[in-house]
C-alpha cells in the first residue's frame, strides 16, 4: 500500500470504530460482551491502544533483532 490509500483506510477504520461505539451507546449500552458491561468503547480503545504498544515493541524488536537477509536462516549452523 502506498500514497494516500492507507490514510483513507485509516480514516474509514476510525469512523467505523466510532460508529460501533455509537451503536453501543444507542442500543442502551448492551455491554461489551460478558465482561465490562456498560463501559462503552472499552474494546475499541483497548484494541487500538494495545496494537499501538505492540507495534512500538515490534518495531523496536525489528531494529534490535533485524539482520540483512544473507540467504541463511539465523540458526543454520546448528539445530
Amino acid at each position, binding site marked *: *500500500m*502506498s500514497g494516500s*490509500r*492507507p*490514510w483513507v*483506510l*485509516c480514516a*474509514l*477504520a*476510525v469512523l*467505523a*470504530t466510532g460508529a*460501533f*461505539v455509537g*451503536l*453501543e451507546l444507542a*442500543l442502551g449500552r*448492551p*455491554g*461489551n*460482551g*460478558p*465482561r465490562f458491561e456498560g463501559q462503552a*468503547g*472499552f*474494546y*475499541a*480503545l*483497548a*484494541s*487500538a491502544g*494495545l*496494537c*499501538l504498544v*505492540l*507495534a512500538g*515493541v*515490534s*518495531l523496536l*524488536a*525489528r531494529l534490535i*533483532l*533485524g*539482520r*540483512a*537477509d*544473507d*540467504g*541463511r*536462516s*539465523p*540458526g*543454520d*549452523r*546448528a*539445530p
Partner: protein
Amino acid sequence: MTFALTLNPGFILMLGALAAFLVPHRARQPVMLLAGIGAVWLMFAPEFGAHDAFGQVGLELVALRLDPLSQVFGLGFITAALMLALASGARQDRLEDGLILLHAGGASTALFAGDLVSFIAAAEISALAGVGLVYAQGGPRAQSAGLRMFVWQALGGLILVAGAALLIAEGGDAVFQRIGTESPGGVVFLLGLLIKLGAPIAHVWVKDAYAEASPLGTAALAVFTTKLALYGLARGYGGEPILLEIGLAMVVIGSVYALIEDDLRRALAYGLIAQTGLMTAVLSVPTGGALGAVAALAFVHMLAMLGAFIGLGAIRLRAGTVSAAAVAGTAPMPLTAAMTGLCLLSVAALPGLAGYAAHSLTMQALANAPGRDLLFLAAAATAAATAAHTGWRLPALAFFTRNRLAPAQEAPFPFLLALAVLSFVLVFVGLTPGWLYALLPPQPALHQPFAPGPLLAQAQTLSGAAAVVALLAGLGLLRARKPRRLLDADALIAGPLVGIGRWCGVVLIRLFGTWQAGEQAVLRALSRFGEIAGRAGDRPYAPWLKGEFWSVISAAGLILVLVVAAAI
C-alpha cells in the same frame, strides 16, 4: 464388518499414503480423496467409546477410542486431508502426495488411539512424514529447516517415550487419559508435548519448517503438527495452571514477531504460535466450557490456517517468494486474494466467519469461569493483536500491491478449488455455528454469538486494530524496505549456546584425558611396585640389601601380628 467399524480412521489415510506412493499421477488424487472419505465414514460409523483393546508386550493397547474431543479434532484433520487432496492436483509430486497423506494418517491415528504407546508411535510416524515434507521442497534452507524440525521432533518423541515409560511404571496403565503434573512421568510427558506444540524456545522449528516447506507441505504442517500436541494437552492436562504462563508466553512471542516478520509464511507461522498459545492458556481453566472452546478454536483454526497457507503458498508458487519486501511488485490475484483474505479474517474472528463463532464461545467460557479476569483480558488482547498481524497486515502486504503492470496470474485451479470449499465451510460455520457447538465436548450452554454485546465488542476490536495497521501503513512502517531476517531463539542456540557447549566439551575432553593419564601413571607405578615385590620374593639369594630388607620387613610384620594377637 465389526473389524471395519472399529478400525482407526487414521489407518485408512496411511494405507492411502502407501497407495499414493505406488499409483500413477492420474490415480493419486482419487486415491487421496477416497482415503479421506473412508476415514470420515469410519469416524462416524461406530458408537462412542473404546474399541478393540488388545494386549501387546504386557500392555493393554486401545487402537480406537472415539469421544467428542477426538471426534472434533478428527473432523478437522480429515477435512483438511480432503482439502489437501483437492489441492494436490496442482502439481505432480508422488513423494509429497504420499508424505502428506502419511502425515495426516499418523496424526489421525494418534488422535483416535486410546493408549500412550499407540499415541506416541503414530505421532512419530506423522512427525517423520512432516520432516520429509520439509525436505521434499529441496534446497539448503529447506534442508536446514528439515534437520532442525527432525532434531526437535526426535527430542520431543524421546521425551514422550520416557514420560510414558515413567507413567506406566508409576501406574501400570497405558491408557491415555487425564495425566496431570503430580507425578514425574506426567511432567516429562508434558515436556515432550510442549516441544511438539512449539512452546517458547522450541517454537523455532515451527517458524522455520512452515516457512521453508513447499506450498502444500506447509499447509499440511500447519494443520497436523502443533494441533496434535494441543490435543494431547487437552486430553491429558486440561486445567493445569502451568499452561497459563506457557500459553501467554507463546502469545507474546508470536504476536511481536508476526507484526514485523518479512517472510509472510513465517509471519503467519508466528501468528499460529500466538493462536496456539491462546488455546494452551485457555486449557488451564478446569471447566468443560473451556475444553469445548479450545476444541472449537482448534477445529476452526485448522481449516482457516490451511486456507491461508495455501493462499500464501500460491504467491510463492507464482512470484517465487513470499517476502513482503519483494511481493510488492507482483501481479494481482483477485480470486486468490479474496479467498485467502477470508481465511485470514476468519483467524482474526471477523463476525460471520467461523473464527468468530469459536472466539465468542471462548470469551463466554472465560467469562463464566470464576477468577479468570487476567485470562479474559489476555484473550481479548490476543484477539486485537491477531486482528492486527493476521487479519489486516498479512492481506495488505500479500495482495494490495503497487505494480499492476504484469497480467493477473491466479493460483492454480486445484488451489482455488480447495480455497473455495474452505471459504464455504468457514462462512457456513460462521453463520450457523450451532452444528459446531453440538459436536463439542461437552456441549456448551446456550450461546448466542450474534447478540449485540459480543458482536459489538469484536467489531470494535477489529476496527481499532485496523486503524492502527492503516496508520502504520501510512507511515511506511508496515514492512521493511529490504528483506530482513529476524534473530530468534535459534540464533542464541546456534551462537552462544553452541559456543558454550563446545567449550564445555573441550574442557570435559581435557579433564577426561588428564584423568586417563593419571590413571595410567598410577597403574604403571603399582605394576612396577608389584614387579619389584615379586622379583624380590622370587630371589631369596639376591644381594643382601634387598633380601635382608624383605626378611626384616617380614619378621617385623610377623612380630606385629603376634603382639596384636596377644593383646587381643
